[in-house]
């Protein structure tokens, strides 16, 4: 039914691994916004070079990144093709009914193709070089300013860490339940629509009951170990900024500077 890998982290010890996950996450998010600034061949060239630099700095095999792009390659091509036909303007090379290939359409299709690939590549750099736990800690840090708006950030942090912790456990549980139901004749990939929809409940209900029981047990365990809400607690896992984070900062400032200079205004 699915090939699932929990965690895409690949160990390594290049420069990028030594950076703080908060810095990496921030630069990744901002990089995607920086791509919005690109609007001519020169700026697209610049973001491509910067993205490839990040990819090379990881020191990982190209195959890792190809695996990131592969599941979406069909979608990327299809999207670019649709753009090609929908955008009109400039010199028309070929026309058939409402479909037309124009110079404007060609350039736009190429831009979209580049954007797609770059966004996937830079996100892959992030997830491959950072452990999920670190990414979650970085997200928690990024959410902190929201507490000004009375968003219960510490509660959210608790939910994040519980969800992160239980994804692998619950996934194993799901497979076990499915196998148990299969061994008694359940069939998840056959029959009509309603039959298939019905076949989901024998997986979901045990999973759901198991979740409820786990929640009750875990809360009892946490309370008996003295948990009384997130306030007034210390942190055991602490993130530390390092000198390497200056590199990613410089990288980003340079990128945005160059884009602002060379983009068509």
């Amino acid at each position, binding site marked *: 039914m699915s090939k699932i890998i929990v965690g895409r982290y690949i160990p390594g010890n290049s420069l990028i691994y030594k950076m703080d996950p908060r810095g990496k996450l921030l630069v990744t998010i901002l990089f995607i916004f920086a791509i919005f600034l690109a609007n001519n061949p020169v700026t697209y060239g610049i973001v491509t070079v910067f993205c490839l630099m990040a990819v090379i700095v990881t020191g990982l095999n190209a195959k890792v990144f190809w695996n990131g792009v592969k599941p979406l390659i069909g979608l990327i091509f299809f999207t670019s093709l649709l*753009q090609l036909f929908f*955008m009109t303007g400039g010199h028309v090379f070929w026309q058939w009914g409402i479909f037309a290939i124009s110079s404007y359409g060609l350039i736009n299709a190429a831009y979209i193709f580049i*954007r797609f690939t770059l966004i996937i590549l830079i996100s892959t750099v992030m997830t491959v070089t950072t452990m999920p736990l670190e990414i979650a800690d970085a997200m928690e840090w990024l959410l902190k300013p929201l507490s000004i708006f009375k968003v219960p950030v510490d509660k959210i942090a608790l939910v994040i860490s*519980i969800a*992160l912790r239980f994804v692998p456990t619950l996934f194993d549980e799901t497979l076990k339940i499915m196998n148990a139901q299969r061994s008694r004749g359940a069939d998840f990939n056959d029959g009509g629509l309603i039959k298939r929809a019905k076949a989901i*409940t024998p997986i979901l209900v045990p999973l759901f009951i198991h979740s409820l029981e786990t929640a009750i047990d875990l809360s009892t365990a946490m309370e008996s170990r003295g948990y009384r809400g997130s306030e007034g607690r210390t942190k055991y896992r602490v993130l530390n900024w390092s000198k390497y984070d200056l590199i990613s900062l410089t990288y980003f400032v340079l990128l945005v500077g160059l884009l602002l200079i060379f983009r068509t205004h």
Partner: protein
Amino acid sequence: MKGDDHMNAKKVLRTDLQQLIFLGIIVAMKIILGQFSFGPATVKVGLGFIGSVLLGYFFGPLWGAIGGGISDLVSSAIFGNQGGFFIGFTLTAMVGPLIYALFLYNKPVKIWRIIASTVLVTLIVNIGMNTLWLHIMYNMNFNAALVQRLPKEVIVPWIQMVVIYFVLQAVSRVKIKK
């Protein structure tokens, strides 16, 4: 089905902490379900929407939306975000459970509620917001993005409604002995 039956699972969780942990586990469940899909190769239906329905059904609009947002963040952390980190998709993940909650939270399971919530989620979230994000992220022509997504969004909601009906029927029957 009796009117008070669907409250059972909720009554079992007495403390705030139990609720929060249950939220965390349901978020984990949503993430896992999102990795599964069923149906023939032509129309694959992902199961993540079941997680959204459960979030809305059990936790209401506010915490359902928060849970939806967290599910997007955590699944990005674990599986990487297909198509890249983008705050818009986190927003999308929040609005789905919110809409389901408005129709299903503390309400008896009724077919019209399921139909209305699914149609609204499809229109606002899948067709509206997600297309808008693709438009913003990739500078795609809005109509082209719409044409690409529309065929699937016309078929899938009907399948989702059937699944939601059976799932809510089953889940509201759950009684925990404690």
